[in-house]
């Protein structure tokens, strides 16, 4: 608590788009209550503060920190550790911090592939073939930019966290509930939930909150929503062949997307008890496919052009595998291999020689 009797609040964006910060500002007049109850000590999106100010703070001197964004580079990692040290309550705020989100999709590729796409593709004007250099000795002194990590990680994979608020971004009404809870808890009028809880969301699935009707359990074809001529406004989207992530996604948004006629894309992460959102979605989709023969199954699945992106759009960095094999292999650490066969023995083995 600061000298003026207010509790201290901080918010930081690591590898994120800034949408989480906007979602907090979208509290509208309630933001005045936040300013009333909290002294905002650090919030790069909303005010001018320096890392050095935070570095100078004693341990545990910030009462509540919302950390949005995933851990993409060493700057993100530094701030994650710094805010863990200086915060009493550290909240993984939003999908990036809690499960990797869109930045986590980079875990399908190696950093080198990513940089090639960014700097070398035909649409990029880069005649000198420049690539980012983390440190550069300029006449005026050394210039530094953050170093990319081989894989994107979630906040809880690098530091201990207290709570998770899911969503991309979290709905402002849910953020307001959390703010009310924090204010009440700091005033001694409420108890904080157990450490590790997911707050500001439900425990069930988006389907549970969706008003659309579910009848049949079989679908004959997947299709993209923009390719459909007519969409039944009352019927389950998945039943109409539109890939919808509702069955494996935590509720909390009020099923905004499916109610509005767009499929759920899974931004609230896995529901309670689900370890891997993608695996659960995969399971749900394969359960409704109306085919018994491998050929028919393959034909229906061809309607899902990007199963990986569909299932792991938000949750790749926190999934069981976390990264594709090339990205995993490029992490710079030799995977512990038990026993290798002599090299010539496997020459020509299909796909097995990429490492």
């Amino acid at each position, binding site marked *: 608590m600061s000298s003026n009797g207010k509790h201290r609040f901080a918010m930081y964006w690591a590898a994120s788009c800034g949408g989480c910060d906007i979602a907090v500002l979208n509290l509208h007049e309630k933001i005045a209550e936040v300013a009333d109850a909290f002294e905002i000590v650090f919030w790069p999106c909303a005010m001018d503060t320096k890392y050095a100010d935070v570095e100078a703070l004693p341990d545990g001197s910030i009462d509540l920190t919302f950390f949005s964004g995933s851990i993409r580079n*060493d700057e993100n*990692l530094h701030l994650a*550790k710094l805010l863990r040290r200086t915060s009493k309550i550290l909240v993984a705020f939003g999908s990036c911090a809690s499960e990797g989100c869109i930045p986590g999709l980079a875990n*399908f590729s190696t950093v*080198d592939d990513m*940089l090639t796409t960014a700097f070398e593709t035909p649409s990029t004007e880069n005649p000198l*073939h420049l*690539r*980012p*250099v*983390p*440190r550069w000795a300029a006449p005026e002194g050394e210039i530094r930019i953050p*170093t*990319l*990590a*081989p894989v994107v*990680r979630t906040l809880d994979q690098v530091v201990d966290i207290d709570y998770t608020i899911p969503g991309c971004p979290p709905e402002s009404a849910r953020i307001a509930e959390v703010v009310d809870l924090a204010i009440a808890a700091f005033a001694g009028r409420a108890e904080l939930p157990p450490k590790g809880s997911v707050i500001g969301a439900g425990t069930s699935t988006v389907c549970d909150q969706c008003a659309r009707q579910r009848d049949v359990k079989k679908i004959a074809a997947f299709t993209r929503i923009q390719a459909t001529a007519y969409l039944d406004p009352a019927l389950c989207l998945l039943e109409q062949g539109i890939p919808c992530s509702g069955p494996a996604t935590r509720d909390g948004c009020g099923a905004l997307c499916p109610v509005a006629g767009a499929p759920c894309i899974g931004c609230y992460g896995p529901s309670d008890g689900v370890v*891997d959102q993608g*695996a*659960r979605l*995969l399971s749900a989709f*394969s*359960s409704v*496919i109306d085919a*018994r023969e*491998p050929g028919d*199954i*393959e034909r229906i*699945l061809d309607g899902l052009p990007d*199963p*990986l992106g569909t*299932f792991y759009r938000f949750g790749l960095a926190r*999934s*069981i*595998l976390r*990264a594709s*094999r*090339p*990205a*995993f292999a*490029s*992490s*710079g*650490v*030799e*995977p*512990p*291999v*038990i*026993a*290798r*066969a*002599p090299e010539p023995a*496997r020459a020509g*083995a*299909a*796909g*097995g020689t*990429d*490492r």
Partner: protein
Amino acid sequence: MSATTTQAPVGAATDSAGAAFEPVMIGFTCNWCSYRAADLAGTARIKYPPNVRLIRLMCSGRLDPAFVLKAFAGGADGVMVSGCWPGECHYIEQNIKALRRFVLLRRVIEAMGIEPARLQLVWASAAEGQRFAHEVGRIVEEVRALGPLGWGRDGARPHESIAAVSTAAGPAAVPAEVTA
């Protein structure tokens, strides 16, 4: 990695230098057909490679795709899913669900850079001990030919430690923090 993460699995040669690679396989069997096929192979003294560790489920339809992913992430080089033949499922047609999951899961692991052949589906009735043993042998040899998968063993997750990435301009000095 530290020595603790390089423990040899059961059945593998402990000498890591040049010793033959023994794949670690997880096999999911159903209570009613394929597990009994494995049982029959045992009572009939049919030999099959000891590389596969069988896990009995009530039905192949019980197989959560997360089980397969966890097996790979935990160090398995291959996963075998087995159940009753189509039309013979104890739970009417849950093995068909397993088939659909298998087909989709293969697409997913392929996109993740894991060879689809590391995941195999085998139908075996309770009377097919011979077939079960033969299929296990075939799959072990296929996976052996693919080589180690190299995902974290014993729960190790090598990619958790961030190593700095060299850029085209050459390797940069790594801030102490990055490797911490």
